[in-house]
């Protein structure tokens, strides 16, 4: 099959198949199921990479940003599934990857898609840097989100005193908390830098006053505010892990809203 013909359906289907094998493995553990799941997931990641390389969807579009974010999470998923084969990492990562891909499909551009431009001037460079920083912050939030969901499941199991080893294997609360903390500690400076670069760009383009009213800009600022709150609650108020996990999930929801919000003032 020519690589130009790789579509979102190819990798979405591969991820879905990987998910099915993973679910079967959880129900009836068989090493072969885990192997099939990893192969299907790897095939999905390969098709996803080919699609991004060939189609080069623009970072500033909902479609492009969601697909790129899904791709980075898929990389995390795939390497996680290889290195943490005993835990249920894939079971939490795959739905997120699939969800992001499906969300991207909803925003598939009509007609000619905007592609990643070749950097020709400083303005474009700063634009790409702004998008990349926000995207990498998004990856941190996604990892934090997965760790938080796992944390809540594990905490619930401990609360009701489920026998150890029963149900899906999960990492310890401490490990999940560290994963969440590291992901957010990494995401915050990236998000801050992304927002600052965005502000400078708005200043240069002379759209500072009306630019603040853009849904994407508002979303990013609210997300930054939630981050500040999260960091304060973690390091200042020593909030319990469960509440921090819930707040991280809120941050993730905000990220999704920001990603799918249409930009009214900035053309893609």
């Amino acid at each position: 099959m020519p690589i130009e013909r790789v579509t979102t359906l190819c990798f979405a289907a591969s991820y879905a198949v990987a998910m099915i094998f993973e679910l079967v493995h959880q129900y009836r553990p068989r090493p072969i199921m885990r192997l099939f799941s990893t192969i299907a997931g790897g095939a999905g990641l390969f098709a996803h990479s080919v699609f991004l390389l060939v189609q080069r969807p623009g970072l500033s579009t909902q479609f492009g940003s969601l697909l790129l974010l899904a791709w980075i999470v898929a990389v995390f998923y795939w390497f996680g599934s290889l290195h943490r084969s005993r835990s249920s990492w894939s079971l939490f990562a795959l739905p997120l990857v699939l969800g992001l891909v499906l969300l991207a499909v909803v925003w598939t551009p009509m007609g000619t898609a905007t592609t990643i431009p070749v950097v020709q001037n400083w303005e474009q460079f700063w634009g790409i840097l702004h998008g990349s920083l926000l995207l990498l912050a998004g990856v941190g939030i996604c990892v934090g989100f997965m760790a938080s969901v796992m944390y809540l499941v594990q905490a619930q199991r401990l609360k009701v005193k489920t026998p150890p080893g029963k149900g899906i294997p999960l990492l310890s609360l401490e490990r999940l908390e560290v994963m969440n903390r590291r992901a957010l500690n990494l995401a915050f400076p990236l998000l801050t830098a992304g927002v600052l670069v965005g502000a400078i760009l708005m200043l240069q383009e002379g759209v500072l006053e009306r630019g603040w009213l853009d849904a994407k800009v508002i979303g990013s600022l609210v997300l930054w505010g939630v981050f500040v709150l999260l960091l304060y609650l973690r390091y200042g108020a020593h909030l319990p892990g469960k509440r921090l996990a819930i707040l991280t999930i809120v941050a993730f929801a905000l990220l999704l809203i920001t990603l799918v919000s249409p930009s009214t003032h900035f053309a893609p």
Partner: protein
Amino acid sequence: MMLLVVGTSFNKMDVSLRERLSFNEASLPRALDEINARYDCETVILSTCNRVELYVGRSTVDSGGWPLSEAETGARLFAEFLAEFHNLPLVEIEPYLYSHHDAEAVRHLFRVVSSLDSLVVGEGQIAGQVKRAYELAVERACVGPLLHALFQHARTVGGRVRSETGIAQGHVSISSLAVDYACQVFDRFDDKTVLVIGAGKMGALTLRHLRSLQPRRILVTNRSYAKAEEVAKECGGKPLPWDQLDEALVQADIVLSTTGAREPIVDRARYANVLPKRNGRAIVILDIAVPRDFDPAIHDGDRTCLFNIDDLKRIRERTLADRRQHIAAAEHIVEQEKIRFLKEWNRRKNGAIITRLTEDVTSKRLAILDRLRRQLDDEISPEAWQRIEAALRLFQNQILHGPISALAENAREHGSHDHYLLDALRKLFRLQD
């Protein structure tokens, strides 16, 4: 194949008699050597605290020695050996012994190694014990083709049962469960503090398990400072005065409480004062004291994970009940593997006879052809020779087809029990061993 298992286990014989029948490190090699010398058979002795079993076998039926074909005689012979070796009257042990032969013996070993015949179904120790018994017999050169194949297959069966069913899921000892819970909360222990409250004997095993996690430090407190010092000395910890309990609770990550106090020593109000000073750090409290030392209301599954003795016992029962649900699936695997082993063994056993038979008939055919060639060399063309050779090959194949098919059918229908056909073939075709 002639295989026999003679022995006893926890559900047949009382521990007082079982311990007299067991083999220790010194007597086990001696017993192996003695069986080998007396009966010239392959032997593995499995001796654990729950069972004593002799696995004896021969690959072929015609090697003489003890009359294993008469199963009951064989069983009695080894029952006598057990009694004689341990200086016990046969009448005292015989009613409590069981014996299994051939296919049933294979099934029995597969059930044992899968811990289906264990006191605690699904326990993991037995697989290692069977492996060590086999290795010791190999070291003493007491294992031949049959027991090599059987015990290696048994290892695979044990692994399959454990990985494909939930029979070995979870722990069932209180101390292991306590450690499992600590591992669900914490990832590493080299930066953790364990606090031991009280000096109850109940906690000794749990503390030993916790120490195996290599925590950074162990604090010990007790109403009697002298007792705290004593426990601290035993476990390499630091004693603390009783009035510093709250401070210790602030520092601790894992608490093991085993006091004999009649009332809870840490109620909700007292713990509410400790909690804010912990800066949101999680704590695992293992309250194995009866009556309980900690108010169960402090458990939230996030910052405070409290497990008392009732929780741990309830979880143990649930784990055992869960394991029991997998017994049918495990038995099915055992049955499958028993059939597979017997088929493989029969194929192997028949394979040797078929090879000998084919080689014998082939050598005879070639000898006849050779003689014929010498007699009629000039009179027959090369094309005609080729036809004669092909015709004799076809004749050989047709002659052998009957016996070979009969062997396969016999193995399918009667397994390894029926040796008459093999004996008949040996005699009819004058096959040498």
